């Protein structure tokens, strides 16, 4: 595989990964938030804990 082809492939997968993240992150946030109490839900949105089911 030539370096040019490799860089194009990496670029394509990065773009597809970003698009996939745009569609998946809100759904993960929704599922994870449904498992948390309200106060924890609102306080967790400022960090990565918003997407993690921690503190159950």
């Amino acid at each position, binding site marked *: 595989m030539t370096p040019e082809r490799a860089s194009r492939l990496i670029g394509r997968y990065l773009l597809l990964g970003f698009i996939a993240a*745009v*569609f*998946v*992150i*809100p*759904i993960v*946030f*929704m599922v994870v*938030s449904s498992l948390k109490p309200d106060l924890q839900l*609102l*306080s967790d*949105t*400022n*960090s990565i804990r*918003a997407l993690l089911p921690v503190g159950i």
Partner: protein
Amino acid sequence: MPVVISMVVVAMLWRFIYDGSDGLLNSILGAASFGLISPVDWLGKTSTALPAIMAMSIWQGVGFHMIIWLSGLQTIPTSLYEAARVEGASRWQTFRFVTWPGLRNTAILVMIIITMQSFTLFPQIAVMTKGGPLDSTQSIVFQMVERGYGKQDIAGGSTISVFLFLLVLSISMLQRWLTREKI
């Protein structure tokens, strides 16, 4: 996947995401820009409320239309692509002269469906902004419901619904006429 979720649920979810003080979107943008992008009240500003609702509606509906385009792409004969390759067509020329003409009927269907759906914009506004801020996110259906149920002006709401029907019908017929087969 967002297509299978009810629009009301999606609107409530994105109301949390768009929140001006504790919203997930502001947190992500702040973290990605290392604090350069300050939090924005997406649904509280007249300049960002309607684009925010549009982005959310596109996020929810793109999967449905993706399936329609995909099925349209699969109806294009591969022999046409082979002929284009033999003739030495570039990727843009192949798209312009093989793919896009082959997707003509699919494009007409999607255009008519999208236009009709756009006129029925209601759940997003009712859940997220209630027509505000400062009437920047008003829609015909929301006005109709607000007038008919909110202000108890049943006659006014009915009038709006009749005009909506005539508007959607005339635009759909115009689109159908503009996209007719020209022999």
